[in-house]
């Protein structure tokens, strides 16, 4: 990488010396300020400085780095763009960060078979933009899609609003090239056919960097729908909005996306650069999108509007063209950042409840947050019952931070008690590993630990993530609360 930025590196560390010798001066850093910049990802609640940061530019370089780190027994945390919200890329004490941001080549596009071979540092939205000329798109669309990498998407089995119809990352990755914990390179799955034998590809997707580091993938591309229609339906109560969603799903229609934003989220968005013209007087808005063939879209759209009106939707806005459609989505996709106007820090939670329990869960969230005196706003994938409670806070206020964490814990437990689960799409990371026993029994957790050991016998791959620390015999120091 040709750039003149001198990265002052601490050569006192023998591991750093070897890494520099293998990868080059520009690919390793261990100076105070760089390490500081890497001490957290999108979840800023937990901070830990890494021992060094490594930027490989090929699978072979990843392998070389992992071999060295493995030999020295240095824990390894992979990182994409650092937009993850469960602390999957939070460094571990004395551990290395391997960031794949320089591996951003789109290696091959095969429009006939509708697939592409990509490096894992490719930005999600860049892939869709690149294949648009063939009338194709990459379906999973997390809200951070303009910044997050496909590698991070694979690690977290990322979703997004349109995964309601198209499914999350695991349905869109055909094969993976991965570097295992000992540095060996292997292929999981195949672009040509469904895997024979154990489906390790699916196992790897969503493993949050604990089974190895994916460096390359063949991904599935979908044809862009013929037409897309988007509506914004404002409701006078959250309850009515949720009931409308249940009714839409029960009617058998398959919208591309169904999102709900509450009044506080709307207020934050409308005050930001992502202002989308959402009505400030609504208690909740429903953002619904239908795509497909014109006949189908027209018919489904009419039925959806009918259902919304039946539940008291006020003034339904219809995106007449692509610009208006983008504007309506811009507010939704920028919602988290827009919350920056509320307080210096933001905790974006992710949990799931059965759709029918959405109103009860939302009432409970508000009650819990009011009780802990923390500021909450909600935006969520209503079609999947996937909630994203946002809690705004000031990380410099230790007491408030403690209250945020306590409220978060109650929210998670409440969702599980309602029949839901820990995460819809952000992953477990270090945010929720201690809650795993809420949804899994000792036998299941033991099976997980055995599986993990089979891939990573020395416990070096993203230790302390996903599983409760006690179970994987590794305390990363990341759970200091």
């Amino acid at each position, binding site marked *: 990488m040709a750039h003149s930025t001198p990265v002052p590196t601490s050569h006192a560390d023998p591991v750093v010396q070897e890494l520099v010798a293998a990868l080059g001066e520009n690919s390793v850093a261990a*100076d105070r300020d760089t390490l500081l910049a890497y001490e957290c990802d999108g979840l800023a609640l937990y901070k830990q400085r890494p021992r060094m940061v490594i930027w490989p530019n090929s699978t072979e370089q990843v392998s070389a780095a992992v071999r060295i780190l493995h030999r020295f027994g240095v824990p390894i945390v992979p990182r994409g763009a650092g937009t993850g919200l469960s602390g999957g890329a939070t460094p571990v004490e004395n551990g290395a960060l391997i*960031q794949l941001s320089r591996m951003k080549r789109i290696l091959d596009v095969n429009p006939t078979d509708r697939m592409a071979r990509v490096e894992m540092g490719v930005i999600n939205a860049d892939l869709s933009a690149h294949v648009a000329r063939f009338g194709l798109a990459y379906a999973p669309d997390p809200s951070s899609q*303009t910044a997050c990498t496909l590698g991070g998407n694979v690690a977290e089995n990322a979703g997004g609003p349109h995964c309601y119809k198209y499914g999350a990352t695991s349905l869109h990755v055909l094969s993976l090239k991965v570097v295992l914990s000992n540095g060996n390179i292997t292929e999981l799955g195949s672009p040509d056919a469904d895997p024979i034998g154990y489906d390790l590809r699916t196992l790897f997707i969503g493993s949050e960097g604990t089974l190895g580091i994916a460096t390359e993938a063949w991904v599935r591309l979908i044809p862009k729908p013929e037409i897309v229609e988007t509506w914004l339906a404002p409701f006078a109560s959250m309850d009515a909005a949720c009931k409308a969603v249940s009714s839409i799903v029960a009617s058998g229609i398959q919208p591309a996306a169904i999102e709900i934003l509450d009044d506080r989220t709307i207020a934050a968005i409308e005050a930001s650069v992502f202002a989308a013209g959402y009505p400030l007087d609504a208690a909740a808005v429903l953002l619904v999108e239908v795509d497909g063939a014109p006949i189908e879209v027209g018919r489904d759209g009419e039925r959806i509007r009918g259902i919304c009106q039946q539940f008291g939707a006020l003034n339904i806005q219809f995106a007449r063209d692509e610009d208006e459609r983008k504007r309506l989505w811009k507010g939704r996709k920028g919602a988290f950042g827009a919350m920056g*106007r509320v307080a210096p820090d*933001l905790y974006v939670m992710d949990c799931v409840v059965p759709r029918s329990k959405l109103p009860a869960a939302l009432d409970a969230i508000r009650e819990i947050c009011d009780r802990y005196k923390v500021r909450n706003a909600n935006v969520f994938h209503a079609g999947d019952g996937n909630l994203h409670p946002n809690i705004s806070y000031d990380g410099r206020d230790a007491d408030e931070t403690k209250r945020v964490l306590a409220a978060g814990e109650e929210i998670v437990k409440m969702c599980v008690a309602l029949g839901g689960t820990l995460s819809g799409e952000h992953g477990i990371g270090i945010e929720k590993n201690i809650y795993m026993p809420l949804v899994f029994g000792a036998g299941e957790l033991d099976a997980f630990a055995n599986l993990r050991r089979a891939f990573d016998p020395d416990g070096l791959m993203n230790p302390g993530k996903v599983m409760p620390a006690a179970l994987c015999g590794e305390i990363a120091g990341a759970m200091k609360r």
Partner: protein
Amino acid sequence: MTEPAVLPKDPCADFASAEGRAHFARSLDCVHCGLCLPVCPTYQLTGNEASSPRGRIYMMRAVADGRISAEPGSTYDNELHFCLVCRACETVCPSGVQMEALVEHARCEMNKKTGPPSRARRFLLRTVLPDRKWLRRAADATAIYSKTPIGKILRKLGIVDWLFPGATAREALMPHVPKREHRRDLPALLPPVGEKRGRVAFQEGCVASQLLQDINEATVRVLTRNGWEVSLWKNPSCCGALHAHAGDLEFARELAKKNIEEFEKTKADFFILNSAGCGSHIKNYARLLEVETGWLHRAKEIAAKTRDIGEFLVETGYKPRNGPRALRVAYDEPCHLVHGQRVSAQPKQLLQSIPGLQLVPLAGATDCCGAAGLYSLERTTDSMAILDGKMQQIRASGCEVLATGNPGCILQYRLGARRAGMNLQIMHPIQLLDEG
């Protein structure tokens, strides 16, 4: 947007000091979402979080919280100066973080620790740029240096590098200096053609007054042709943007005040700039002067009357060009126009109104070219790495003319075309509209 409650008088108060915390409060809007990473030209080069807006803000916060000290020569220092202040991050930031304000302040704070600037830097910023007489001398000297044997002798004797350390190594960057008769000052008052619609003030700019006076001439021709009387002043010849970016906020404030005084004397209805960097900076005068007693409302007034030439013509209406220009033109959006002033549609509208002109799409049109004020001189390798990437996109667009509205970018692209061996004309959109 978190607006600081009470701002300190000292523009360079430490982030960690009680006073500086008010400046620093601006960084608190950042929620660490990372949406700024992919649009940052330096992150694109390195893939390093510390070279991203989010990483830089994170380090600033750590300085403010006393977790690290701002040390000269540290990565923090390096990253502050690696940043181009292109403001692409501000356009995509959902939280409205004011990156330019933060970086200017952090540089100011760092300058205090680094010690006095080099002779050359101080001379250039404080003596040459604000004074038309010195600008002319500097242009004369550059012309003599590059076109006569004197340059060779000075170089051999090492005098050049003694005066301007590292200058000979950067000779390839040297712009073409037009002959003296092509860089004459414009008259102080230019009458409108036909019925007078009003009076506008116009500033020729520091570098542009010597190197791109043809663009200034085209600008005033279009203005007068459209019924505007144009009023100009010679000194200060610079708006102070380069000073503010370099962290010399103290001198930037002095220049701002002098320019406000000169503008008020013209009694003009508008202040027109054809330089995106200057327009953006002048629109920000209120931020610069908010703590100076008696200046805030004057700064707000000049900001409210300031327009980029393209923005102004579309807003007030203009006579379309008569003669056709059968050219394939790509429009590159200057950072301080698209990101700094959020002016994007108007220059394209101007170009599209020109008969025969074909506007071709340009990938990466809103990305920085790497000129960034003094950046190309001070961080040449980084600047050229960014420029070379842009030249590939420009080549791919198949354009014959590249239109862009900022002197720094125009000079940078002329250099880029030379480096890439491309036969490409670089023009200001106003030159294409002009029929003179």
